[in-house]
């Protein structure tokens, strides 16, 4: 009797356990299948020699479908857990992937670069602050600090200045859209493409020959000597910065222009009635009104100037005294394979943007809802 009873109880526990195990197996089965499919795609993409078109197509389906599937599977699994647990896990289905990728690609690299910056070229021996000593005393590094400063002052000043000028003027004419569109157009062009465009403008041929570069043609037209602009220190930096101004003025113009549309007409009318001149109105009413926009635009272009790489890399490769911080970092890493110095220079770049980061956070915490 006792054994029979035990058996039924046992069976009850057994079925219960089986059902539970079954549920767990099913719950695990779907993610595992999903994982296997993704892994197979990963291996195919990593090792396949299929024609380019096929790879591109598989890649697009795998990448996009895979991401969608990951979200769906994660959601499915979370919904099989008890309700209270599911409620807690649910938000992480949405923000989890983004947080994981950000941690891998930006947050941890900052810490890892900081760590590597205290080691030698092969990251084997601890060298203390030697790499930072290099970063702040090497003559090429000092040159790049000065050049970057020039990029920040002239590049930002030029782009914001011209952007403001165009925005103010275009606001007063009928063909506003056409003018703005054409000034804005270089925004779509890569730094490398812009590099070719401007190399051509600056092209040099010895005196006496027909100049094919626009700038030298103008110079010789007025009786001047043709110049090899890129070797003309320190002015060659200015010639490179002109490219940034050409590219970024459109950006500054668009943002400033939008801010101008927000200046209430009544204030300006009041100024007019008081007899203020147009220049006076712009200086004392309009500019103060859009001051915060000007700060935002300047900040963005300062950051771009600070990290400037492609223009210098393709135009002069940092020769003739045009080195900048980012090109120094690239050279240390990929030409000299000095990971310690490369990392230290990257950390210097991060230190330089900390004030901007702090300002951004302050602005954001002022906003409601968070």
């Amino acid at each position, binding site marked *: 009797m006792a054994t029979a009873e035990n058996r039924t109880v046992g069976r009850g526990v057994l079925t219960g356990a089986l059902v539970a195990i079954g549920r767990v197996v099913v719950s695990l089965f779907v993610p595992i299948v999903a994982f296997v499919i993704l892994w197979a795609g990963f291996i195919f993409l990593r090792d396949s020699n299929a024609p380019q078109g096929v790879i591109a197509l598989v890649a697009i389906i795998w990448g996009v479908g895979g991401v969608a599937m990951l979200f769906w599977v994660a959601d499915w699994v979370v919904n099989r857990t008890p309700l209270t647990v599911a409620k807690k896990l649910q938000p992480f289905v949405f923000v989890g992937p983004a947080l994981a990728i950000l941690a891998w*690609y930006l947050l941890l690299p900052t810490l890892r670069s900081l760590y590597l910056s205290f080691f030698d070229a092969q990251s084997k021996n601890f060298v203390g602050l030697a790499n930072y000593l290099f970063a702040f005393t090497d003559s090429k590094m000092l040159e790049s600090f000065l050049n970057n400063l020039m990029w920040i002052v002239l590049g930002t000043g030029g782009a914001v200045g*011209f952007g403001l000028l165009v925005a103010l003027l275009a606001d007063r004419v009928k063909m506003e859209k056409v003018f703005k569109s054409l000034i804005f157009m270089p925004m779509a062009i890569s730094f490398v493409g812009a590099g*070719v465009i401007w190399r051509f403008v600056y092209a040099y041929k010895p005196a006496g020959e027909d100049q094919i570069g626009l700038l030298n043609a103008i110079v010789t037209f007025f009786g001047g000597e043709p110049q090899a602009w890129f070797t003309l220190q320190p002015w060659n930096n200015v010639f490179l910065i002109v490219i940034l101004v050409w590219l970024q003025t459109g950006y500054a113009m668009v943002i400033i222009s939008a801010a101008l549309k927000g200046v209430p007409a009544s204030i300006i009318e009041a100024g007019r009635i008081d007899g203020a001149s147009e220049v006076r109105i712009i200086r004392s009413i309009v500019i103060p009104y859009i001051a915060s926009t000007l700060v935002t635009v300047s900040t963005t272009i300062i950051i771009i100037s600070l990290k400037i790489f492609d223009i210098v890399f393709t135009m002069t490769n940092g020769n003739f005294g045009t080195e900048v911080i980012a090109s120094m970092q690239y050279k240390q890493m990929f030409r000299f394979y000095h990971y310690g110095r490369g990392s230290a220079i990257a950390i210097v770049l991060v230190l330089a943007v900390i004030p901007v980061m702090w300002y951004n*956070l302050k602005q954001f915490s002022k906003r409601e809802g968070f």
Partner: protein
Amino acid sequence: MKGKKRSGKWNLVVNLILLALVIVWSIPILGLFISSIRPQDNVLNTGWWTVFGENGGFTLDNYKQVLGGSQYTFVDSAGNTVRASGDNLTRAFVNSFTVTIPSVIIPILIAAAAAFGFAWMLFPGRKLFFTIVVALLVVPLQIALIPILRDYQTLGLTGSYLGIWLAHTGFGLPLGIYLLYNYISTIPRDVFESAFLDGARPMVVFARLVLPLSVPAIASLAIFQFLWVWNDLLVALVFLGGTNDVAVLTQRLANMIGSRGQDWHLLTAGAFVVMIVPLAVFFALQRYFVQGLMAGSVKG
């Protein structure tokens, strides 16, 4: 400042100043384009502005050569058939698309989900995590090059498309989340409430309501990310490596500057090939692009 487009003497001056600026801004591109369709000898010996005078004549040979494969033949000005090695930018063109399309779609999906989570869900650490996202907006991507390259070497991802998609995803996420958060957080609460009352799961609400409602913001982010990825050189140089099999347009153009620095007829045609897609996207979708710029003007 609306509705006072006045006429008169000042108006003429303003128009003239603007016209001068626009000409200065457009002339470099015009010169590039004209040179790219001039015969080699003319490009190398006379200024492009002389096409308006005695040195007329246009050709598509430059484009044939930069787009063509390794064995390209053409007839030179003296009438001889010349064999030259082309630059095979066609391959790089396909590569650029292979890199760009997933690098645009993947980060947008992930960023949209995260933005929805941050905007409409409560969870521990929400504020802290979002603060980190905002802080990462300005972190220079240079910081990630060495550590991520090491991971890729361990995982065998260097020189693979997968590696560069993930890299562009990682670097594009802070701006993506920030832009989409700004938009998704302004969707009226009522829209969600009725759906939740009907017992819809958050994933369903996200897929059926949030994504369709966010199309304008997603469009601006897509254009932004597209231009950024297509025009990028540094990330491609580091993670894709230098082989011509996978090299994208910007890399090939940078190589051409190095190896063919004085062949202006080819450089100008090559540069135009690199520019044509972003310019088309830009002019077709300028409105969305401007909206995107407005919504997130500080990016690292």
